[in-house]
């Protein structure tokens, strides 16, 4: 196995991966500016992302000095909303991706290691889960129980975990399983859990990490879509911003009220693309044949 420094050296070669990383860092800085701005610069009554209101003008107001990206139909500052939501998107994406990958890695490793019934069970389960059209399903579920961001992240994480990711990680774990040192560890009397934890999982980890990036993308897109349809119990997110514009009827006056949907839409796309690009960069680390020559 290569060391972390070596992984990084390979990753650095990938221009796409680095570009993605830079964008993510920019979003990170952007998100961290929120508490600073809110506490020190902005008037909380005006710039609160959910209950703020600027009484000095008509809304939605086009971008101007006080509101660099304008205001939404009920008088809230778009830039403040955008900033405030960034942190939450990070939280949602990373949490759900973490769950899916940790659970997926563990199941994949177990299925590969034990084989037999465990394997068959989880693989058939994955087949079925993969058939689930998540977004429509969650729309139906969400319309019945209004999910908040946290439970949404958890549900999404588990749905992803039992699906395709298990199959991919299991295939990887299988390749590790047949290597001689696993047998050596067994002969040396290592118990199953120990072998899985200290031999199989570390070898699957780079691939897991890769899928984590892709799952962040999936999670953010799902959240945005569901928020857009207004079935989540979330007071503010990038998807909610577009939802607000839509329900207030401004979305279909396309060009005129662009600041209502373009900044948040672009933020979603850019954020997702960035994680996806990092994933592709990692792909080159994991998969030597893709490497730049």
């Amino acid at each position, binding site marked *: 196995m290569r060391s972390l420094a070596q992984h990084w050296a390979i990753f650095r070669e990938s221009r796409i991966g680095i570009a993605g990383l830079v964008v993510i860092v920019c979003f990170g800085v952007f998100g961290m500016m929120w508490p600073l701005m809110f506490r020190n610069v902005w008037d909380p009554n005006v710039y609160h992302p959910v209950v703020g209101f600027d009484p000095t003008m008509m809304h939605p107001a086009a971008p101007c000095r006080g509101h660099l990206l304008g205001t939404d139909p009920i008088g809230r500052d778009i830039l403040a909303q955008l900033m405030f939501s960034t942190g939450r998107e990070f939280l949602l994406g990373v949490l759900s991706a973490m769950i899916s990958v940790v659970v997926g890695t563990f199941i994949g490793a177990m299925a590969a290691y034990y084989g037999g019934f465990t394997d068959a069970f989880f693989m058939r389960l994955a087949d079925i889960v993969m058939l689930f059209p998540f977004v429509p399903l969650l729309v139906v579920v969400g319309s019945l129980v209004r999910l908040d961001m946290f439970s949404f992240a958890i549900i999404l994480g588990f749905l992803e975990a039992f699906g395709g990711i298990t199959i991919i990680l299991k295939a990887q774990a299988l390749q590790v399983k047949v290597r001689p040192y696993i047998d050596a560890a067994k002969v040396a009397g290592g118990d199953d859990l120990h072998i899985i934890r200290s031999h199989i999982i570390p070898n699957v980890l780079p691939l897991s990490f890769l899928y984590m990036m892709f799952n962040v993308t999936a999670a953010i897109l799902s959240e945005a879509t569901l928020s857009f349809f207004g079935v989540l119990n979330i007071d503010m997110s990038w998807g909610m911003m577009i939802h607000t514009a839509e329900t207030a009827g401004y979305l279909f006056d396309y060009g005129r009220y662009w600041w209502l949907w373009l900044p948040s839409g672009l933020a979603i796309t850019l954020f997702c*693309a960035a994680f996806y690009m990092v994933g592709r960069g990692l792909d080159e680390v994991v998969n030597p044949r893709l490497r730049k020559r």
Partner: protein
Amino acid sequence: MRRYVLGRVGQLVITLFIYIALVYFLLQAMPGDISMIYLQNPRIPQAAREELKKQLGLDQPPIVQFLSYIRNFFTGNLGVSFSQYPRPVWDILLERLPRTLVLFITANALSFYVGFMLGRVIAWRRGATVDHAATVVGIAFWTAFYPLLSLILIWLFAYTLKWLPLNQFIEPSLWVYAPWPSNTVFGYMVFGIAVISIAVFAILWSLGRGQRKTGRKIGLAWALSAGVFAAGLGVAASAGMLVYMWDIVRHMVLPVVTLTLINFAGTMLLMRDSMLETVEEDYVMAARAKGLPDAVVRDRYAARNALLPTVTSLVLSLAASMSGGLVTETMFSWPGLGQVLFRSALANDYPLATGALVFTGIFLLIAHFVADMLYAALDPRISYGGEPVAEG
């Protein structure tokens, strides 16, 4: 072969059963007793409630309810929608399904084709400007927020350039005096296109069989295909349906383009990665050594083999592309399954939502099956469950 197909069909039925059960119990397990929400909805007349309750067997234990749901399901009884009370769910879904079907198949076939072609080119010219450009553009579309992309396309092509209609399935003013309902025209249209496709496919297949491709054969194939297409158009025109069909086609363009843009990059990037692996295979080097033209080495050797894992992933991505399709339908007010699903979910129309969800699942299962068969047809190493041919 037969055993392989039968085995897959068997799996299909079992999976379908489990899927229905999961959807059913998932919705049952939701807090706030759906059946009560359902029955207390003010839109249902008081008198209908008691009868509905009995009809749905809501007074019985869940497992009995489930069994009767399954039985009803297979007899085509999915209950009654209450947002469109008293229209049966089955009726609504049957009306919507073909539209989603056509949208989904067209967009997926198109995006797979585009993705395959582009992936092939950029893998072959790895590291060139076109490779970087296509990768970046592809990722941008692949991770685009669907509603945003739809909005931008509508804004550009319908609102600003006015090339295409804004949304929906048809232009109502045109259809006021139409002698047929839109669904009839649509049905004929789908049927006609299916016939034409099969004919063209047969022509290409029968003329493309040999290894020697002469210019004459290719010309003949093109001419015959064009002839078949013209004949189809002629038939439609003489029946007077052509204007109406054209209207539907015009309405389809934007949703199809959006879905294609969203989906093609997945195939393209996979194809690229997969082909970067096959180009290193010995048989590709052997093909070069054989002095075959570059295009033949690329298409028949590198790309043909790279196609296999790409099709596998296509199978895995069907569900995601279905989700994207449903969202896109809603954005374009395309009256298909997706729109029904979202509207019914938001209106707490529980039988309709369940029905739509189940239908989506069935639809995906079948797509899954078709893709599997396609894969088996593409890869001669799949032994259809029989013994491999004896070793020599």
